[in-house]
């Protein structure tokens, strides 16, 4: 009995080892859900290009792309838990200081606008733009009903994002002048762009912030009004620099990239890579 058990133990322990050895090169990318569509599309194409060029099936490059948010992206690349981080915001001074030893290097590939978005029901009821002041008051809880800004008599569902998210940083920097502003008017806190998009679409009186690539018929972008000027987050206004809430979409490496990672980042900056940025709904960085 004992011998049988011992044998099983050894057998189970030993067998998996040879099978788990895997030497094919691998790039791990983690971070912003805004940059993620660019990364996964580019990864697919890049893997194809690599395969044609090298034509060696045994050494197939694999690129793994995972979400988490800009904060997570910066963290994991700085700590060596991933090869490339994705960020939709600048590296904050405190992060710069904390990760001084990692020599973080930013490779910007595109530009995106952060739109103030509202539920389609409110949009259809006539709200097509708000001033910075109005949005600020909504997030501070001073304005709690849509009728105070000319909409229907309905309470506002104020949707915020987790504090480390790049989209929130860009939005709050414009609205409050502080990327980590406190927002006592918040009713819901969401994480990724997808989560926020779903929650706003499910509600009929929500306001929130989303990357411009996530706008659709259920979640409508509104313009930012400044006196008589209204800036809408369209491709045209973003490209011309007329929309106020824009941020760079970047890939981050610890130190100068080398080998496969360098090749991938160069691919992103090449015309073909910039095409991918465009297809993902963003403005190429030139």
């Amino acid at each position, binding site marked *: 009995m*004992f011998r049988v058990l011992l044998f099983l133990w050894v057998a189970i322990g030993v067998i998996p080892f040879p099978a788990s050895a895997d030497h094919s090169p691998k790039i791990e990318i983690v971070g912003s859900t805004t940059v993620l569509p660019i990364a996964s599309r580019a990864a697919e194409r890049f893997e194809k290009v690599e395969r044609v060029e090298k034509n060696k099936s045994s050494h197939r490059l694999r690129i793994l792309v995972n979400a988490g948010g800009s904060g997570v992206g910066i963290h994991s690349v700085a700590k060596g838990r991933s090869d490339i981080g994705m960020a939709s915001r600048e590296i904050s001074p405190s992060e710069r200081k904390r990760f001084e030893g990692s020599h973080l290097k930013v490779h910007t590939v595109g530009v995106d606008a952060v739109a103030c978005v509202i539920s389609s029901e409110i949009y259809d009821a006539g709200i097509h733009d708000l001033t910075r002041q109005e949005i600020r008051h909504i997030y501070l809880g001073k304005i709690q009903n849509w009728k105070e800004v000319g909409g229907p008599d309905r309470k506002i569902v104020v949707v915020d994002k987790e504090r480390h998210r790049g989209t929130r940083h860009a939005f709050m920097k414009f609205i409050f002048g502080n990327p980590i502003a*406190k927002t006592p008017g918040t009713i819901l806190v969401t994480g990724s762009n997808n989560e926020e998009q779903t929650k706003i679409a499910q509600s009929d009186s*929500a306001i929130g912030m989303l990357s411009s690539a996530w706008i659709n018929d259920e979640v409508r972008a509104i313009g930012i009004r400044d006196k008589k000027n209204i800036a809408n987050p369209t491709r045209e206004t973003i490209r011309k620099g007329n929309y106020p809430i824009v941020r760079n979409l970047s890939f981050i490496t610890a130190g100068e990239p080398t080998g496969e990672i360098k090749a991938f980042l160069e691919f992103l900056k090449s015309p073909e890579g910039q095409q991918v940025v465009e297809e993902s709904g963003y403005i190429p960085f030139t």
Partner: protein
Amino acid sequence: MENESHGMMWIFAGLNLIFLCCAGGLLFFLIFESYPIFKLQGFGFWLGQDWWVGEAYGALPMLYGSSLVTALACLLVLPLALAVAIFTSEFLTSTSRRCVKAVLELLAGVPGIVYGLLGVSFLSLWIKDVFGLLDGNTLATAGCLLAIMILPTVLTLSEDAMRAVPSEYRDNALGLGLSKWQVATAVVLPQAMPGIMGAVLLGIGRAMGETIAVMLVVGGLDRIPDPWFNIFSSAQTIPSKLGREAAESIGEATHWSALMALGLTLFIMVLLINFIGNRFLKRRSIS
């Protein structure tokens, strides 16, 4: 033969020791990792209401949210579980009983994320419509979802506890002229009570630790509802907070320590509930 069983015993004892060490090690790790935040804020960590990374870490909203959600789930689950367990154990034929059990045990194995997605796409919308709420991501939604999640576990274990009551008890009671209903409620149920309590405790443990399903429907707002009994407002639970912030905080001393302290708090809460439950059971069985 004697020798072999002796050897086996040593192996089992060794394994036992390993598991004990794992539990102790976990507790030690949590205390060690959360020490910095307690050094910084003292026990005010549990009383603070503001959680702003880099400024202040107050766990009260999360503590409150976790307790309330779990209590809600228990309140919803207990009557349902008892009713169905009594019916399944005492009134069903053995074939249909086995069918019911198989389905329940299948449900008990469904992962949390599946319940979470169902919660986001259906339950939160239903609750919003039924109660006429501003938004469906509330404590009540999380409570209901948890109730649904732990129901199969609580139910099937309660039913096991009732089946485990020896059939002589039933035969004697029936022989004394009690009706089937009286036998179930006055004879079997009290006897099975310790087992049922154990089932509920297990359910509470799962409800308290459930991360992803709660995270998706609870609203993620680190604030105690106003007024405090307003279960139709967004809030935050401990596991949901950990789930949202853990990846970002690894290696960031104070933030990480605060999250570990939250984990420690949850650990202690579950321990306390189990302890109280055990005391309660002992007292019952003595009387």
